[in-house]
């Protein structure tokens, strides 16, 4: 089957000499459409760097990242930004909602930035799913961490990206909320047929994934 997301001999080093950190060291990963893949590793193992590369946020030293067979780093910055916002949804550990916008606005912001019309029904469906339908006008600073992360999930889903990249999405949450949020994320992704790549250091969370990729010192240890 065709891979939706693929890395080929990906390399990214930071620093030089004694300070050289091999964040990604000749890594090959293959992720198929509809998969839920957990990337597990200790902090500093290079998993975040890998995710940033997958999302086209950072350029590698060498190697390729293919999304739907297309080498994203051959795109110019501007095109890459557009490509990214149409193909990829990001979820970060620290939610990163725009504090000046309310829940609804935060969720539809990527669609707006893409200059598209909002599919109100679809977005409302997501919002209902995350259980925020009665807090549409709330500002982020009035929400709990779990609520904020749920909004962030909705935001990542709203523009119907093919791939969702989540970087420790539950890192700031207590274990119960964590389970709930991952559950939600997983269900949404299955529901809308999206591919989910999630970084976590929590092994029990990783068990919920279809597949686990373990990274140590920039290398894939176990796929």
């Amino acid at each position: 089957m065709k891979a939706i997301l693929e890395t080929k001999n990906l390399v990214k080093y930071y620093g030089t000499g004694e300070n050289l950190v091999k964040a990604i060291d000749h890594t090959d990963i293959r992720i198929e459409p509809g998969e839920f893949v957990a990337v597990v590793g200790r902090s500093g193992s290079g998993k975040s760097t890998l995710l940033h590369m997958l999302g086209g946020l950072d350029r590698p030293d060498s190697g390729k990242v293919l999304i739907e067979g297309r080498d994203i780093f051959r795109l110019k910055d501007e095109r890459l930004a557009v490509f990214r916002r149409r193909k990829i949804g990001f979820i970060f550990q620290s939610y990163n909602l725009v504090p000046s916008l309310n829940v609804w606005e935060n969720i539809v912001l990527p669609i707006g930035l893409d200059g598209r019309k909002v599919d109100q029904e679809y977005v409302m469906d997501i919002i209902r799913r995350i259980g925020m339908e009665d807090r549409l006008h709330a500002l982020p600073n009035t929400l709990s961490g779990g609520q904020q992360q749920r909004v962030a999930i909705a935001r990542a889903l709203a523009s119907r990206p093919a791939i969702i990249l989540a970087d420790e999405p539950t890192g700031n949450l207590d274990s119960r909320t964590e389970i709930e949020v991952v559950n939600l994320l997983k269900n949404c992704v299955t529901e809308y047929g999206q591919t989910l790549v999630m970084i976590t250091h929590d092994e029990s969370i990783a068990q919920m994934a279809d597949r686990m990729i373990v990274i140590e010192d920039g290398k894939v240890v176990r796929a």
Partner: protein
Amino acid sequence: MKTVTKTALANVRQNKVRNLISGTAIILTTLLVFMVLTVGNASVAVRFAGVNAYYPPYHAMFRQVSEENVQKLSSHNDIEKLGRRIDLGEGVEDDSTVLLMYMDDTALELNRVELSEGTFPKSGNEIAFPEAMLGEYGLTAGIGDEIALPFQLYEEDGLGYQKEDTFRICGFLEGENGSEQKSYPVLVSEEYMEQTIPEESREYRVMFRLKDVGKNIETTDAIEEEVKGIGADFGVQEDNVVINTEYLLANYIDPTALFGIVCIVLVVVMAGVLTIYSIYYVSMVPKIQEYGKLKAMGATKRQIRQIVFREGLLVTAIALPLGLLVGSLIAGPVTEWIYRLGGNIKTEYTEENLNTICMQLLENGEVQILTWWIYLVTILTVVVTVYLSLVKPMRMAAKISPVEAMRYQGERPGKKQQRKGFQEMSLGRLTRAGLARNKRRSALTILTLGTVGILFMVVATVISCAAPKEIARQEFEEDYKIYVDSWSGDKMNPDREWENLMQNNPLTEEFISGIREVPGVEKVEIKTYLSGALTEIDPESDIAGASIQGLGEDYAKEMEDCQIEGHATYEELKSGDQILMSQNMMRWFPELHLGSRVKMTLPVGNKTVERTFQVAAIGDYPSAISWANFLLPSSVVEEIAAEAGESVNLNDACEIRVDSSLSGSEREETYAALAGLAKTSEYLETDSFEQHLGNWETTMMIFGVIGYAFLIILGAIGIMNLINTMINSIYTRRRELGMIQAIGMSEKQLVRMMQLEGLFYTAGTLLVSLGLGSLAGYGVFLYAKADGMLNITVYHYPVVPAVALAVTVAVIQLLLTYAVARSFRRMSLIDRIRYAD
């Protein structure tokens, strides 16, 4: 405490950009405060020095003081220095005045009599006089030669019979060569004086300086009172007390000027406080976490406050000396430059020589421009400014609780819980929401920038309204003017009194027809004049006299148009018992109003006429029409003169219009011809519209240059603030912006968003500046008009400065946005996202 300083120092290094900006703002503030004080102080100091070098430096003079009283006075405790002078008589010479007098050394000093050659007379028949006098007598002689001079001594009842004596020339006095007045002092020795005048009939003039002037006695009035008191004690009649008003006035510090300087300094301080405060406030928010950490580690509130304050103080410690250094370097040239420009202004009021002396003093560096107290005041002012601007940020940093600080995500859990929001999002809406969240910061920035803008617009409005041409037109009716130069109260020159001049008026019919014959002269208007006292209200003319300008039929329209209260046609005024009064009179005499009956005592030739008029109308007329307090038809003025039965000529001035089609050189020729006519009498003076225009142009140029220079520095302070806001709004949000980029904002959109924000600040600043500034400008115009400031009468919107301001703000904003965006883009997206993680 050492740790606190160290932390502050580390913070200085860490917040490089912020401190660079605030440092620049402090430098500029320092510079402004320093320059305003220095230039203000220097102008006063230079003037004092000039005045001291120019005018005789005595405070007062008593006339007709007996020998005995001179001795008593010289030992008076309040008198610092006393000089004696005694006039012996007048030399006999037809077309010049030669005055024989004796002066002691102090009198010579207090009168600024100086030798160009030789010595002052010491004994016997030695004399000293200006060398030019020899020419009057047709003599050639050198020092040591003897000459015979005919003279008349003063006696009890006037001048005595002509005598002649032989004198030996011991020195020549400094004097203006070719002086028009042709008056020459001749100094004789004390011995000669004592021989000539018996002791009992000696009447000295004593000139003296008081002690403590400037300390206990400050105002001219106080000096006058003191002097009169002393005079009264020694039986000097008030008539014989002469105050050296010129000198005193020249020394007098105008409290409004001081007030003005204080106001300007306050404005600068305000701008400084607002800017530095805003810089610190804006950049404090992202630092809150740091202070929270410090607090968690055990720092007390006081220590946190100290850290913030010391950080500011450290920056000040570098910026303040820099500002002072720059100020010290440019203060001298700037002051000199202002004086050089000022030297181009020539009016009938300015003493040309005084300005030259001032220039010389400045160029020779004889006036100390930099004084220690200005440094002290500047340092204090700036430190207070910095302290004031740091009070709030200090408190903000101290107040934060450690737990809160750790969670602090850039904004406090605001009062606002909800936001109506939009259904669809766009870049513009995102920007708008961001600006709305930071309302306080946005408002603060716009306000600081706007304040400078408002100031700019106010100054621009004043400068624009004070159009030299209009002001000159206000002062000058036609193109050229020949007028009789009369003044009153000069006992030395009684011939200048109007009642004397009118009997010997050079503006005869013949002379006027002479004017009409000058080629290029198109029209000549004659104004007549009468001057007297308001018999009942102010018989001594202490406040204002009864000056009446007589205007011909041609002025009927002007006379009616200028009326602001009451109404009287020219025909009605012709009746002779009604008068048009200047509105200025109401200020001086509040009891006067429409319908008042004013009694006047009007001297005409050797007689006086008493007349009572009813104020039929109150007028506000420009000085071009007349500066007299009352206006009447010429016919009425003539009637009054006729009533006295004296044959007098009341013609005061000829307003001459020159053919407007004449070319520049032809015009010059006409002017030269007219000036030639006026030269025929020493009582005639000339004036031209061009002269006034030129003066005003220079004045307005100086005013404009200084005003705009001041505003530009103030503007630079404002721009520091703008830079800070822009940088902060971008850098403190770099993570947020990075995230938004991760979820789909492209670089282009990011730059567009920054531009939109910049546009908002620009628009806001311009709205405040141009909107409020225009309103404030109009207000100032109204005030200036009511107050007669700069002769402003017509409102002109300062279009060019307004456009320039708009363009400047827009361009600076654009450049700033561009620069900030550029430097921001240099940081990789991933660094932006990682920041703060």
